[in-house]
């Protein structure tokens, strides 16, 4: 009786120590560097590095979200980013926090080159090195690299930087969502035209 209990205890202890060693080894051997969730969040953020969320860049905000900050502080990403983050983190998709700014159409910086005095202040402000120029030389923006973060506008001493919305061309044009009016039933067809005809 006693011996069977003893055997059971010994066997369980042996198993526990074996698995403990395996787990301990795996924890060291297959250790994941960094926090993968932060990387995943960072991948969803728009990488404008604009700081509108109150953090000094997208990565710090990703870290903050991983630590429990709210997901609606990113105006450049807008609702799409919030939805994607909510999906990733299994949270509820909440509307954008207006305190940090509004969702605006995508823009790019444009330097009015006649007015540029070549102070290099915008070059230092640009987080993605999208502005080209040298001291006392005219500067210009590399449009394809500009993320539209706005950060170069404020430091400009002569206010020669404009944020211009990206033009819609056949190349970047998007098909609109079909509008459907669910209130209209088939027998209502033609009524709208009749009304239009009456008003004309």
């Amino acid at each position, binding site marked *: 009786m006693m011996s069977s209990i003893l055997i059971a205890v010994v066997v369980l202890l042996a198993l526990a120590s074996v698995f403990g060693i395996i787990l301990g080894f795996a924890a060291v051997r297959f250790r994941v560097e960094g926090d993968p969730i932060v990387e995943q969040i960072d991948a969803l953020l*728009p*990488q404008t590095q604009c700081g509108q969320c109150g953090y000094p860049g997208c990565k710090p905000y990703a870290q903050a979200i991983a630590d429990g900050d709210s997901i609606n502080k990113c105006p450049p990403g807008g609702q799409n980013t919030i939805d994607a983050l909510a999906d990733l983190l299994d949270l509820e998709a909440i509307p954008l926090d207006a305190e940090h700014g509004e969702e605006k159409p995508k823009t790019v910086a444009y330097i009015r080159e006649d007015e540029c005095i070549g102070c290099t202040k915008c070059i230092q402000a640009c987080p*993605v090195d999208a502005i080209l120029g040298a001291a006392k030389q005219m500067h210009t923006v590399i449009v394809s690299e500009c993320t539209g973060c706005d950060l170069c506008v404020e430091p400009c001493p002569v206010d020669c930087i404009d944020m211009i919305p990206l033009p819609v061309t056949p190349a970047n044009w*998007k098909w609109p969502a079909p509008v459907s009016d*669910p209130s*209209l039933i088939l027998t209502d067809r033609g009524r709208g035209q009749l009304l239009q005809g009456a008003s004309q």
Partner: protein
Amino acid sequence: MSRIFSFHGGIHPPENKKQSLGANIRLAPIPAQLILPLQQHIGKAALPCVAIGERVLKGQKIAEANGRISSSLHAPSSGVITYIGPQPVPHASGLESDCIVIDTDGLDEWSTLSPIADYLSMNKMDLINHIRDLGIAGLGGAGFPTDVKLHLGDDHIINTLIINAAECEPYITADDALMRERSDEILAGIEIIAHLLKPSHILIGIEDNKPQAIKALDQALRASTLNIDICVVPTKYPSGGEKQLIQLLTGIEVPSGSIPADIGIVCQNVGTTAAIYRAVFKGEPLISRVVTLTGYALGHRQNYEVLIGTPFTTLLEAAEVNRTTLFRLVMGGPMMGIGVNDERIPVIKTTNCIIAATEDEMPPALPAQPCIRCGMCEQVCPASLLPQQLFWFAQGREFDKAKQHNLFDCIECGACAYVCPSNIPLVQHYRFAKSEIRTEEFEQQKASHARIRFEARQARLEREAAEKELRRKERAEAAAKQQAERKLAEATPKELNSDEEKAAQIKQLKTAASVARTKLKKANDALKNAREKGLEGIDKLETTILLLEQKANEAQQAWIDAGGEQS
């Protein structure tokens, strides 16, 4: 005759092809102005190689292909370049895009052409470059640069060449007319492609509603030495879809996300073969094509040989449009075509049909009703997708799920929307979802690119700061070292070489000695004063005086040692 297989789904819409087959292909008039969009093909837009004000001849190159997947442009008639810039183009968005505008002079003067006399003895690469140089792109609808399909490299071995002559979409008869009238050109074009690709089978896929075209091809075939099969397929929309036709003729399904070349098949449109023939045998670039002008708002419904760049207005007028009955203008067929609001847009390499429809012919779409999950769309989908499921995902903006359900295999044929009893514009939903997904992917790419740049910048700034810090430290160290050396030099009297140096040192020592004496004197005075007034700290002063005395003596001694007394 080889075996014909089948594909899933498909529909049988009214054909409406007879109306435009009453007469032979007619030459459309040369318009006063030709508008040539730089982007008429898939790939990068061409780069203009002419200047405003320059006179160009018919067939002269006006824009150069830009990159591997691109196509060059040629002047369709002689005239003067008057404008290069944004103009309305045939695109679903109705937006403007860069075009070259030629004011024609009506002379239609050809430039010197360079036909190839014997292409069989020519280097294959030179032949492909010749075709590329003459701006040949797929005339079927997508406008893929033909030279890319003819030069697939070593990773694709082509065993089957399929010539797409199905022309399954209602109303369109451009290929039918071309086959009836120019079957010899088509055959010669096929021979050139066969020479380049060396396929073991050549199949021409044609629907059984084109008996005259089949007959004409058959006749032309008798003169050919090539082993070509004419595969007559039953009329069913969309049998002319590339993947559908491949399945019909070979029974092989092109895997999702791959191209036919991956399974050893190349598809060419029948019109493209004629264009290749003209490019090789006559040296003519792709400057005109056959366009079906049809719809009951037109007086002359038939096929026209149209110069690329001819505005729709010119064509509609040539076909005697009745503007009072014209209700809707469609570019392409009724199933996959797009509505046109601006008649100024030009014919491009991929324009196969223009329908000027009356209201009875194409009434406005009925309002969409809720989906009743009848499943009819699933029955007709030629890509074996689940259209209603895709519709729900698109409507609910669940694009990830739509993608998982193979949204991108949708060929936008419109069969599902055609049979939908609730009149849901299904294809519009798919197009919307597709462009949303594409935009999202583009933004993702851009974001990761920006992150790389940001991180590179951060690394650079850190490195610069570290380098600066290092330099500062080095400077500090160097300064400390210098200081130490100087001290060491002061401690050990130097071997003095010149008299001047000696004199200077003696002077220095003399000053030091007198300073020391003055200090001692001051201290003595202070001590005297303190003793008289009985102040505190007399002991300290006494020790200081002792120290000062010692220093003064040392200084005096140093001066004397240096030979100060003598001077």
